[in-house]
């Protein structure tokens, strides 16, 4: 099911695809080539369509939203299904990100990877792509902690300690277990609170 992997790797082996920069991607939005109806993100220079969200996905994101909202401080903010800029070739829209917040500067531009404290992707049909394409991309960008919530199997993968395109520390939590964030001090949640 490595659909996106195929796009990013195999397709370019046969047809060498013209990849786009973040600036070009934004220009497409400005001149109306991409419009509001386009649910897309830029992943390694490829403009990728996002899957429609099912009920369990929406429910899960809403629960995480509630949990993390309670946890935000004056210097952090929660961003839901909004873009972050990783580098010149990637501007994904993760389901949930906990960001550093400064009222003066926040949102002057698309928040950069350096401002991300915790990133959460909720996966149903996209699990393989999330693991094989997105997690390494987030590690490469130095995002300190990434969670993949596997809605189908009701478990949560917690990745931390990014090191040259991979996370050195990976832990999988099953139902009934409690996650203590390895990097966001004091943040903990049970698997059941997030996916039930």
């Amino acid at each position, binding site marked *: 099911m490595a659909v996106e992997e*195929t796009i990013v790797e195999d397709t370019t082996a046969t047809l060498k695809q013209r990849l786009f920069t973040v600036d070009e991607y934004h220009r497409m939005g400005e*001149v109306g080539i991409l419009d509001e109806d386009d649910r897309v993100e830029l992943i390694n220079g490829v403009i990728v*369509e996002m899957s429609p969200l099912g009920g369990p996905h929406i429910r899960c994101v809403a629960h995480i939203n509630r949990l993390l909202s309670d946890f935000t401080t004056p210097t952090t903010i929660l961003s839901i299904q909004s873009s972050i800029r990783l580098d010149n070739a990637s501007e994904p829209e993760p389901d949930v990100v906990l960001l550093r917040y400064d009222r003066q500067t926040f949102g002057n531009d698309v928040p950069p990877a350096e401002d991300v404290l915790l990133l959460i992707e909720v996966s149903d049909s996209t699990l393989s792509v999330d693991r094989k394409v997105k997690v390494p991309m987030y590690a490469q960008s130095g995002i300190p902690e990434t969670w993949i919530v596997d809605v189908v199997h009701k478990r949560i993968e917690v990745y931390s300690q990014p090191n040259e395109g991979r996370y050195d520390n990976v832990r999988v939590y099953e139902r009934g277990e409690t996650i203590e964030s390895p990097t966001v001090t004091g943040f903990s949640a049970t698997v059941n609170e997030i996916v039930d």
Partner: protein
Amino acid sequence: MAVEETVAETTTAKQRLFTVDEYHRMIETAILHEDDRVELINGIIVEMPAVGSRHAACLKRLINLLPYLKPQDVIIDAQNPVQLDERSEPQPDVALLRHRADFYAGSHPRPEDILLVIEISDTSLATDRADKIPLYARSGFAEAWIVDISHRRVEVYSKPVEGRFTSIRAYEQNETVESPTLDWLKVAVISIVE
């Protein structure tokens, strides 16, 4: 050889594909610029491989030879866009076009304007066979050639039926290609590729 299908399927599933109109807008708004050697294939913007000197020589031979053979009402075109459908605008190495008074200033040639396309392949042989030839067959081209520089051969595809060419013939270096659809076109392989 389902590479072309793989591209179409995996990418319609996930990748945002572009129409010819969107592709043209990218050129107008300088998102794509002159330095971009690209073509639109099945909704994907693809970079064309750098042209090596053997490829360039083969093209030079063709565009110097064809004028002596062609009738008045045929236009010879080299490395320019042809618009095939909503999602494909490739740039074949050579295209033989029906004569049009404006030399296609008003719009790029469409499939019905095209008598023959020729792709010159060295490193791109697999891609040309897997991606370009099925695309040309689907567009209903009467005839397409691949000049295979490495093996000094010319492959001639004709009789498109339901998106496939049903007649394929390969000519070796000591043979003469006889176009199955253009009676004036007979070319010794050795005069195109040394």
